[in-house]
C-alpha cells in the first residue's frame, strides 16, 4: 500500500514539525525537496499528508501550550487553552479531533461531488477566460492579506515578475537570467519558498528570542462529558458547512473558515460571555471549519489549477516540478493521481485521529526542545534539501538570497503569500495572455467580449471596489485586529 505509506510518512513528519510550532507553509517548503525523489502521485499524496498533519497538529499545541503553529489555529487557542487550564484538555483534544474528522469527511464528499462538473466547465475555458480567472484568483487572495491592499497587489506583481525569470517559452530568449545558466529554467520554486517562509521565519524568531513558556498541561481523560458533546455537535456541524463554503472561494481557506466559525458561534450563543473562558463551541466550530476549508480549498486547485492560498501555491509548484500542469486535464489525463489524492484525503483524516490522540504524550515532550537547538537544525535541513533539488550549491545560495528578501518583506510588513501566488501563476498567466491576444489579433477587447471572461473580470472589479470602500475597509481591519488580539 504505497498510498498509506506515503501518507503515514507525510503525517509523521508534519506532526512532529508542527509540534515544534513551525507553520504549515514553512514545513511544506522545507519538505518539498524530499518529495521530488518520489513518483508524482506519491509525492502529492505525501504533501497533502503534510498539509493535513500541519493543519491538525496546530490544534494540539494550541490547546496544550497556547502556541498556535499557524494562523488557522489562533482561534483554537482562545477557548482550547482555557479548557485545558480548567482540566478539560483531553476533552478539548478529542472534540477537536472528532470534529476535524467529521468536517474532513464532509469536505472530501464535497470535492467528489463538485470536481467533475467544475472540471467540465473549466474545459470550456479559452485562453482569455483563464487569464481573467487567474486575475480574479490573485485579487481575491489579497482580501486575506492583512494590511494595505495596494501593497498586497504590488506584491502580486512582484511575484509575477520573478515568475518571468528564465527562458521565454515562445521565443527562447533569456530573460533576467544575468547570463547564469542555472537561471535559464527559471528560479526554482522550492528555494524561494524555503527562503521566504523558512529562513525568514527562523531569523524573526531568533530576533524575538522565542521562549516557550506556559506550563505543560497534563492530559487526563480524553472523554468529553455528555453536556460537552451536546454543545459541541451542533457547533461542529455549523463550523463544517461554513468552513466548506469559505474554503472553495479563491482567497479563502482554513484561516478565514476558522475565524468566521468562531464569530458565528459567539453571535449564536446564549451566553457569549463564556467565549474566551473555555467554551466548548469555541473549540468545536473553528476546528471543524478549518478542516473543512482545508479540504475544499483543493477544489479550485485541482479543477482549475488556481491556488487559493499559499499552501495550495506550494502544491501547484510541486505539481509543475513533477511535470503535471494543474488544471482540468489532471482529472481526465491522470485519473490515478486525481482520485488517489482524494482517497488519500479521507484516509488521511481518519488516520490523523488514530495517530494523534495516543501520541499526545510524545508531542508534549517534543515541545520542550529549546529553540536554540531547533533553529540550526531547521537551517541545516533547508540547506541539504535545497542542494538535493538538482545537486547544486547554487540552490543553497538562492535560499540565502531569498532568506534576506523574506526578512525584508517581514520588516516592511509585506505579505509573502500574494508574492508566492503571483510567482506560481506568472508563467501560465503570461502564456494565456499572449495566446488570447494572438487569437484575437491583438485586440484586448477579447477579454470583455467572451462572456465567461467578462463575468470573471466584473467580479474582480467588484472585489477591488469593495476593498476600496471605507465601510468594507473598516470591517476588514476589524477582522484582522480580532485575529491578532
Amino acid at each position, binding site marked *: 500500500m504505497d498510498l498509506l505509506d506515503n501518507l503515514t510518512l507525510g503525517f509523521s513528519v508534519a506532526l512532529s514539525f508542527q509540534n515544534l510550532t513551525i507553520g504549515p507553509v514553512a514545513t511544506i517548503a522545507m519538505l518539498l525537496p524530499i518529495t521530488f525523489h518520489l513518483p508524482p502521485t506519491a509525492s502529492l499524496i505525501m504533501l497533502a499528508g503534510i498539509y493535513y498533519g500541519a493543519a491538525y497538529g496546530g490544534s494540539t499545541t494550541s490547546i496544550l501550550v497556547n502556541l498556535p503553529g499557524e494562523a488557522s489555529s489562533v482561534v483554537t487557542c482562545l477557548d482550547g487553552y482555557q479548557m485545558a487550564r480548567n482540566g478539560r484538555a483531553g476533552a478539548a483534544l478529542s472534540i477537536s479531533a472528532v470534529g476535524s474528522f467529521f468536517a474532513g469527511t464532509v469536505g472530501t464528499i464535497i470535492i467528489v461531488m463538485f470536481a467533475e462538473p467544475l472540471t467540465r466547465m473549466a474545459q470550456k475555458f479559452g485562453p482569455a477566460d483563464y487569464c481573467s480567472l487567474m486575475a480574479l484568483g490573485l485579487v481575491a487572495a489579497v482580501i486575506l492579506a492583512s494590511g494595505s491592499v495596494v501593497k498586497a497587489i504590488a506584491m502580486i506583481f512582484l511575484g509575477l515578475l520573478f515568475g518571468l525569470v528564465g527562458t521565454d517559452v515562445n521565443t527562447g530568449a533569456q530573460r533576467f537570467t544575468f547570463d547564469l545558466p542555472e537561471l535559464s529554467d527559471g528560479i526554482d520554486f522550492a528555494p524561494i519558498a524555503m527562503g521566504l517562509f523558512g529562513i525568514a521565519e527562523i*531569523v524573526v524568531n531568533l530576533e524575538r528570542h522565542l521562549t516557550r513558556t506556559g506550563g505543560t498541561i497534563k492530559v487526563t481523560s480524553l472523554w468529553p462529558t455528555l453536556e460537552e458533546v451536546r454543545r459541541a455537535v451542533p457547533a461542529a456541524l455549523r463550523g463544517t458547512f461554513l468552513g466548506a463554503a469559505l474554503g472553495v472561494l479563491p482567497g479563502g481557506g482554513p484561516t478565514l473558515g476558522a475565524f468566521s466559525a468562531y464569530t458565528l458561534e459567539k453571535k449564536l450563543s446564549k451566553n457569549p460571555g463564556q467565549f474566551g473562558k473555555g467554551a466548548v463551541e469555541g473549540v468545536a466550530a473553528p476546528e471543524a471549519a478549518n478542516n473543512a476549508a482545508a479540504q475544499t480549498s483543493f477544489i479550485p486547485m485541482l479543477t482549475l489549477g488556481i491556488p487559493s492560498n499559499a499552501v495550495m501555491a506550494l502544491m501547484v509548484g510541486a505539481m509543475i516540478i513533477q511535470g503535471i500542469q494543474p488544471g482540468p486535464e489532471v482529472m481526465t489525463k491522470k485519473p490515478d493521481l486525481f482520485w488517489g489524492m482524494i482517497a488519500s484525503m479521507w484516509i488521511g483524516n481518519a488516520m490523523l485521529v488514530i495517530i494523534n490522540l495516543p501520541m499526545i504524550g510524545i508531542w508534549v515532550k517534543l515541545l520542550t526542545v529549546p529553540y536554540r537547538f531547533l533553529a540550526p537544525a531547521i537551517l541545516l535541513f533547508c540547506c541539504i534539501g535545497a542542494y538535493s533539488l538538482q545537486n547544486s550549491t547554487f540552490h*543553497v545560495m538562492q*535560499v540565502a538570497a531569498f532568506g534576506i528578501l523574506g526578512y525584508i518583506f517581514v520588516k516592511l510588513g509585506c505579505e509573502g503569500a500574494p508574492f508566492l501566488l503571483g510567482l506560481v501563476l506568472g508563467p501560465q498567466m503570461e502564456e494565456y495572455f499572449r495566446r488570447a491576444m494572438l487569437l484575437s489579433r491583438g485586440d484586448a477587447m477579447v477579454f470583455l467580449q467572451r462572456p465567461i471572461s467578462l463575468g470573471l473580470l466584473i467580479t474582480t472589479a467588484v472585489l477591488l471596489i469593495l476593498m476600496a470602500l471605507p465601510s468594507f475597509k473598516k470591517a476588514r481591519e476589524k477582522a484582522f485586529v480580532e485575529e491578532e488580539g
Partner: protein
Amino acid sequence: MNRFLSKDFLSGLMFIGFGLIALYFGQKLALGTPVRMGPGYVPRMLSLTLLGLGALVCIIALVGGSDPVERIKLKPITLVTIGIVCFGLLFERAGLIPALVVLIMIASLAGEEFKLTEVIGNIIVLSVLCTLVFKVGLGMNIYILRGVW
C-alpha cells in the same frame, strides 16, 4: 519619528526599485506587437505597473501615515546568511560534516544563548542523523567527508 522611515513608504521604494531593475535589464528584450508579443512585452507591462503601484504606496504612506519600521537586529540575519553561504561553499568541496559543523556553529551564534557543550552535542546528533538519513537512507550522492567517504 521620521515619516520617510515608515514600513509603507519603504515598501513603496522597494517596489519602485524592483520595477526599475526589471525595466533596466528588460530593455534589450524585443517588445514585439500586441499580436505577436516579443519576450519583452509582458515584463515591460509588469514593471511599469509595479512602478506605478510603488509610487502609489509611497504617496499613501506619506499622506495617510504608516507604522514605523521595527528596529532591525543585524546579528541574526547576517549570521544565518553567512552560515548558509558557508554551507554552500563547503558542501561539495569538503563534504557534509565540515559544512554542517560550520553552519551549526555560526547559526548557534545567531541566538541569544551560546553554550559550547550544547552546540557540540547538537552537531554530533545532527551529523549522525543526516548521515543516516541522506547518505544511508535516501542514498544521496554526497560526500560525508571528502576524500574519506
